[in-house]
C-alpha cells in the first residue's frame, strides 16, 4: 500500500492553526492571571495546568459530551455558525487549544513573574496601562519564553493522540492526523507504513526539542 502524506499535512495544519490561536489566547490568559490579585489566583493557575495531568481520554470524553450536536456547546456552535465540532477539523482545533494551553501559558507566565518587579512599577509610574505594560515591556523581555511556548505548543499538538481520537475519530482528510494514522496502520497490520510514519514523527520531535535546547543555549533559566 502506497504511503500517504496527507496525515502529516493535516497534523502540520492543525499545529499551525492551534499555535496561532494559542498565541493570542495564551497572552490574553497570561494578562488576566498576571494582573489578577484576588484570592483565586492559585485556582486559575491550577485550571490552566489541568490538561498537563488530566488523561487525554478524560478531557476528550468531556469535550465529546459538550461538542456533540445534542450537547449545549455543540448546539450553540451549530445554530450560530453552522459549525459541527465533533469529528471535524474545527473541533480538533478547539480541543488542541484547550489541551496545549499550559504549554503556552506556563512558560510565559513564569517568565514574566520572574522579571524584576521594577519593570512593571516603572511602566505604571510612566502612565502605562496593564496591557501596554504587558505587551511593550514584560513580554519583549520574556521573548525567549514566548518562543519556547510557541514551539512547545506546536510540537505538542503534532504528537497529540487521545483527545483527537475521542473528538475527531479517524476521518481521512478531516481528522486523520499523523498520530492517528500510525494507530490506524498498526490496526490494519501495515507495519511498514506504521514504521515509516513513526520514524518521521520521531525525527521531527527530536529536531524540535533540539532546536529548543539550542535556542535556550546558555540561558540560565531552563523552561522545559
Amino acid at each position: 500500500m502506497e504511503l500517504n502524506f496527507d496525515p502529516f499535512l493535516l497534523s502540520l495544519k492543525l499545529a499551525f492553526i492551534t499555535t496561532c490561536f494559542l498565541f493570542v489566547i495564551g497572552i490574553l490568559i497570561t494578562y488576566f492571571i498576571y494582573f489578577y490579585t484576588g484570592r483565586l489566583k492559585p485556582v486559575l493557575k491550577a485550571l490552566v495546568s489541568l490538561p498537563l495531568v488530566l488523561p487525554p481520554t478524560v478531557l476528550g470524553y468531556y469535550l465529546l459530551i459538550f461538542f456533540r450536536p445534542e450537547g449545549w456547546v455543540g448546539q450553540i456552535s451549530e445554530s450560530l455558525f453552522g459549525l459541527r465540532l465533533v469529528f471535524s477539523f474545527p473541533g480538533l482545533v478547539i480541543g488542541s487549544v484547550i489541551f496545549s494551553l499550559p504549554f503556552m501559558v506556563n512558560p510565559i507566565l513564569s517568565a514574566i513573574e520572574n522579571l524584576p518587579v521594577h519593570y512593571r512599577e516603572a511602566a505604571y509610574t510612566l502612565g502605562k496601562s496593564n496591557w501596554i505594560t504587558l505587551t511593550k515591556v514584560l513580554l519583549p523581555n520574556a521573548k525567549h519564553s514566548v518562543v519556547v511556548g510557541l514551539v512547545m505548543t506546536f510540537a505538542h499538538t503534532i504528537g497529540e493522540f487521545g483527545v483527537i481520537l475521542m473528538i475527531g475519530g479517524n476521518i481521512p482528510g478531516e481528522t486523520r492526523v499523523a498520530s492517528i494514522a500510525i494507530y490506524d496502520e498498526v490496526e490494519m497490520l501495515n507495519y511498514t507504513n506504521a514504521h515509516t510514519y513513526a520514524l518521521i514523527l520521531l525525527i521531527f520531535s527530536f529536531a524540535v526539542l533540539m532546536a529548543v535546547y539550542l535556542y535556550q543555549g546558555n540561558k540560565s533559566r531552563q523552561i522545559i
Partner: protein
Amino acid sequence: MIDLKLYKKLAGAEGDFVLDVALHIPAHSILGIMGPSGAGKTSILKMIAGLLTPEQGEITVNGKTWYHAGQSVYTKPQHRSVGYVFQDYSLFPNMSLRENLLFALGKDRNQQIVDEILDMMGLQALEHRKPDRISGGQRQRVALARAIVRHPEILLLDEPFAALDKTMRYRLQEDLKLLHQKFNTTTILVSHDPAEIVRLAQNLAVIERGKIIAMGRPSQLLTTLKSDVFEGEVMYIDTDNNEIIATSGHFIQAFPRQAATTALQPGDQIRVSADGLIVRKKE
C-alpha cells in the same frame, strides 16, 4: 506643594511595625529621607506613586488629592504625575536609551524634549544602545532623564546612586542638580549618604521603624544627629578604653561598651539608637 499623612502596618525583618508619618514638602524643594534599611522609606515613595496602598491617611499634591482614606479617593499610579527612579533594574532592557525615553514620553507629545534631555546629559552618542551595553552610572543617568521627561509633579528617587562608586555618584548628583534647576520638580530623595543629602536636599527627615524621629535642615541635623542614629560595622573592640570603634562607611565613631554588647566581634553589623543603646543587627 505636597502634603502626606500615611498609616500602614508593615512587616519588617525584626517583626511588624507601624508606618505613621506626616510630611509637608514645599513646592520645588528637595526633601531627603534617611534611616536604617527596613524603616519604611521605600514604602513612603511607593504609597505616593500609588504602587502601595496605605490603610489610613491622605496624599495631596499641588491641590489634587491622590489618596484619601476617609473619602475613598484613590488615583491609579498611571494617573498620578510622578517620576520614579529605582536603585536598579530601572530601564527596560528591550528598548534602546532613546526608546526608553520615547516610551516614557508617550506617542502624541513633542519629541523635542527627548533630544534636549539627551543633549543636556551628554547621552546622544549612546542613544541607540541598549541598557545592558552601558555602565551602571549611565543607566541611572538615563533613568533620571526618563523619570523627568514627562514633567512630573513629583520626582521620587529611591537610593538612585547607591550602587555607584564615589566618583560616578558625585557626577550624577551634579546631573540631578542641573535637572532640578531646569525643571524645578518637587523631589523626594531617599539616601544613605549624608554627603549626598547635604549637597542636594533643603530638608531632611530621619525615619526609624516607621516614625519620623528628626526633621530639619540637613547641615544642622546631620551634625547633631550623627551619633544618634548610627548604623554600621564593628571595626575594632578597644578593651583598654572599653570602647567599640565602628564605621558607617562614611565616618568612624566610638561608642562606650555596654554589658549587652560584650559578645560583639569585629565585622558584626550594629545599630545605635538615639538613646545610645547598641543593638546587633541580625544577618
